């Protein structure tokens, strides 16, 4: 992080003075934290808002922006130049630069609060300058400009003023009122609310010490120097204010199946907090919700890992693009399906039960199949060695593999899985015959003592050229040739892979049992690998863009180039969900690279 620069020794002194202000406020909280309600609907706080400017202006981020064609065009546009000129004009009047002005005006912190007073929103924005003298000067200058402009146009003075307990309030419309209070700029959405804020500043606000959820978050923000801002939303109040914010008990069955306890927490949590951090090499975002006060219901408790359990560790085969790892006890959830799913979904599950029985030797789906599958689920996506493919498909797709743990003492089930794979291949070939598509040829190979059941599509054959005639133009190879479906059992882990190459690469990684992580779910994506995938399919993606969006070639190439640059810049992303007794946390971390 860059060292904080002050506009002048005076500004530094002012900031220091504000930090040791006699007004009671939490350590390192921006000035004005006691001027807003403790139980505001929305509370956003930034002790170091200029950090955002630092990051935005950092050479690496500017280089990234420079690689985006749309941004370059915007910078070179007349519209941008006109806006820049206006900003520069105002900055020149104030004897500063726009960057310096922002730092001087907001360098001491920022608070945004939205309360509900008498059923109406009362919004407060408090900006603490690092240079209070600059704030006073800028404020006076801008008022003078507005008045002069109005006068030049023959209009009345647009600024209304009123004094409240010795502090002058200004208003340019009925929906705005502001004042400089204790060297900070306070902007509200009504004169009445401005008076309330001034009263709080002078008298101290009612309601006592801030609640723990606020102080804890403030301390966390302070402990991380990369924190740009954090905020807290009172979900209870939001739900009471507008029922559309309440998540209904019955929603899409798929969402319930995937996110059951998290939806339950969102339905019942009194608040949710979020924090955003931006460091030199990574950007993170964190969202936290308290667990329901009376705990999860028996149904949703089945989704939560027991102590010491969690999602299995990620797999990192060669060329990995993405990884999804999940702890989920499907057998236990299957027992309470009637409480989770609506009747029409249950009918589908009954069919699945019957269908699965045919493939798994008459086993009951819940107790016979899901119970034998364990709780560790992993999905791995990886690049393929396209150069070694034969034939090389025109659209190059990644390989993916589903990795599932199986019950260690159920060898018959492992055998059933292998047979089920062969049955699916047979069914696929029947369908292919009807569609005149090439069939899958089955085989097997052994890698490091592990037998892999393999399949591959028969290669298309070009007709032989007749004597004296040129060879026929080869047709694009169908995307199906990206797939060589394979299955294998490594110890207690069953793998269903779209590609033999990925299956081979997973064998050594699966020889060691997976460790349990502390999170319930982990999603990990490599942006650079994705960017490579975009690059090798670029011409096709450009054409697709032209057809689907109606763009010309230059615009389509620009949009695909932008996608590639974004993926390269956000070089690696990890998202996790953790269920603890007291709270649910979602965490996103994006490693930053360069656009090229």
């Amino acid at each position: 992080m860059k060292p904080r620069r002050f506009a002048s020794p005076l500004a530094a002194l002012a900031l220091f003075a504000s930090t040791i202000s006699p007004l009671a406020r939490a350590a390192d909280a921006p000035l004005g934290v006691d001027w807003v309600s403790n139980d505001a609907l929305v509370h956003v706080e930034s002790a170091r808002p200029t950090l955002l400017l630092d990051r935005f202006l950092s050479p690496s981020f500017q280089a990234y922006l420079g690689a985006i064609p749309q941004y370059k065009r915007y910078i070179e546009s007349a519209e941008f130049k006109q806006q820049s000129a206006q900003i520069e004009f105002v900055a020149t009047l104030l004897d500063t630069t726009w960057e310096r002005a922002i730092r001087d005006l907001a360098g001491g912190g920022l608070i945004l609060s939205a309360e509900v007073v008498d059923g109406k929103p009362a919004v407060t924005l408090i900006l603490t300058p690092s240079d209070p003298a600059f704030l006073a000067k800028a404020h006076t200058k801008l008022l003078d400009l507005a008045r002069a402009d109005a006068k030049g146009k023959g209009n009345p003075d647009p600024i209304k003023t009123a004094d409240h307990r010795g502090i002058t309030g200004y208003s340019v419309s009925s929906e705005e009122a502001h004042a400089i209070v204790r060297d900070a700029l306070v902007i509200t959405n009504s004169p009445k609310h401005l008076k309330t804020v001034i009263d709080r500043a002078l008298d101290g606000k009612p309601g006592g010490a801030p609640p723990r959820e606020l102080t804890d978050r403030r301390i966390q923000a302070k402990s991380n120097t990369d924190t740009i801002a954090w905020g807290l939303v009172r979900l209870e109040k939001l739900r009471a204010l507008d029922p559309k914010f309440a998540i209904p008990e019955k929603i899409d069955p798929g969402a319930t199946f995937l996110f059951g306890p998290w939806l339950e927490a969102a339905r019942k949590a009194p608040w949710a907090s979020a924090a955003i951090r931006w460091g030199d090499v990574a950007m993170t975002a964190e969202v936290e919700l308290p667990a329901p006060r009376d705990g999860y219901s028996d149904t949703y408790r089945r989704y939560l890992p027991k102590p010491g359990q969690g999602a299995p560790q990620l797999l990192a085969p060669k060329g990995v693009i993405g990884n999804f790892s999940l702890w989920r006890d499907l057998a236990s959830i299957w027992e309470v399906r009637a409480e989770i799913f609506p009747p029409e979904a249950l009918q589908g599950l009954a069919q699945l039960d019957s269908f699965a029985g045919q493939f798994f030797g008459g086993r009951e789906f819940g107790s016979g199949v899901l119970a034998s599958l364990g709780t560790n689920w992993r999905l791995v996506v990886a690049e393929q060695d396209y150069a070694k493919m034969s034939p090389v498909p025109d659209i190059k797709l990644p390989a993916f593999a589903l990795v599932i743990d199986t019950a260690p003492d159920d060898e018959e089930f492992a055998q059933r899985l292998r047979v089920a794979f062969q049955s699916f291949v047979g069914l696929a070939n029947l369908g292919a015959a009807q569609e005149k598509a090439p069939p899958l040829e089955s085989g097997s190979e052994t890698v490091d003592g592990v037998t892999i059941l393999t399949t591959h599509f028969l290669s298309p054959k070009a007709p032989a050229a007749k004597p004296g005639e040129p060879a026929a133009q080869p047709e694009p190879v169908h995307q199906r040739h990206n797939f060589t479906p394979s299955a294998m059992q490594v110890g207690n882990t069953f793998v269903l892979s779209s590609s033999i190459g990925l299956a081979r690469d997973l064998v050594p990684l699966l020889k060691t049992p997976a460790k349990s992580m502390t999170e319930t779910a982990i999603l990990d994506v490599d942006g650079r690998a994705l960017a490579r995938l975009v690059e090798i399919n670029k011409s096709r993606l450009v054409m697709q863009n032209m057809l689907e969006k109606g763009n010309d070639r230059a615009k389509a190439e620009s949009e695909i180039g932008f996608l590639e640059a974004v993926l390269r810049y956000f070089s690696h992303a990890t998202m996790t969900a953790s269920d603890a007794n007291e709270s649910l946390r979602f965490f996103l971390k994006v490693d930053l690279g360069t656009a090229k």
Partner: protein
Amino acid sequence: MNSLPHQSDPARAWAPYEPSARDPWDLARVAHLHRRAGFAADWSTLVRDREAGPKAAVDRLLDGESHARDGQTASDFDALLAAMGSRLAPGANASVIQGIWLYRMVLTPHPLRERMTLFWHDHFATSLNKVGNAALMQRQNDLLRSQAIGDFKAMLAAIGKDPAMLIWLDSTSNKKAKPNENYAREVMELFALGRGRYSEKDIQEAARAFTGWFVIRDRWSEIPSQHDDGPKTVLGKTGRFRGEDIPAILLEQEACAEFLCEKLFRLFVSEVDPAPPALVKALAKRFRESGYAIRVPVETILRSNLFHDASVRRRRVKSPVEYAVGTVRALEATKPTVSAPALADACSRMGQGLYTPPSVAGWDGGPSWINTTAMLHRTNFILALLGKDDEALGGRIDPAALAERHGVAPLEFYRDLLVQDALAPAALPTKTDARELAVLVAASPEYQLA
């Protein structure tokens, strides 16, 4: 009742039109030319061609423009579309291949070529639904385009070996022991002569000539051992004919050129009035004498007195593709243009799914394009195109700005651009916004006609 002028005077009918005080080269005539010979023109093209005169306007349609609507040179545009088509996987779905063609139609520098390719697609109707291979359909489309205003002899010869056509007609296996009559029947009835101009025996004999022709692994192949090398008699000619000999025999028939010229007459002149035999015969004579150069009858028609007579305007119903592509081009929704798959879906909903004609006879056309459901879909298309809500089709046109850019008041602009003299000024509200005006005109009954 036939109301066409010059019915019994072919020389006068097909003589080149010369502008006069009574029949001036005006906006209505320029717009008529583009409606029939392309997909409707934008304002700049109408104004340019009005200034240039009929000869230059027809020349440009026959030879194509130098640049496509997206700004690329014509050759670069053709190369781009060829690359798109060549990369179609056999299993690509209908909206992809339809979208590629519609994208080409919207931006093409050669609207007459695309208009004629669409005509031949209807003439040699083949459906992806049965062929099941988008790459083969694209190859057939490329063949039709390559000869769209070229050599009918070459096109007829090539279509007989086109895998998509042979799969469509269940003619992938033609053995000596059991000649397959499907292609022989269709080539006479639908492609070259028309019903009643051949006998059942002619079909059987021609089918013997086609024995030995197969489609193997999606390619046309010939197996000599399966060819019936015996003598055959087809349309009065006898010999040891092979499949390649049949098109020449068909083209020697006077009925062949007449059959095709009658269809061209319906395409360019009128689908309401029966084609007068004297006019068709005169046109067919030129066609035959040219060695079946398609450009000859097309050019004759487009330059003729008959074509430019005011009475033949709006004697056709626009097909959904003409309607949709023409509107997109006329309203300059070209940079960016609309989503091609969405345009394909819109055309299908209006009743014309490209590459999926309903039968070997193609689309019924004419009044069958217009029914309550089709009209609802046409109106919905216009509303989507001129609105802002539909991401795939809308948000690309600002009707007020478009009229202003060309320096014409909205009322005059949308009437003159889209319907010209077909709508009296009093038929349109004077005080309404440009978007509403454009919708009113484009959804009017008059605009449904070509």
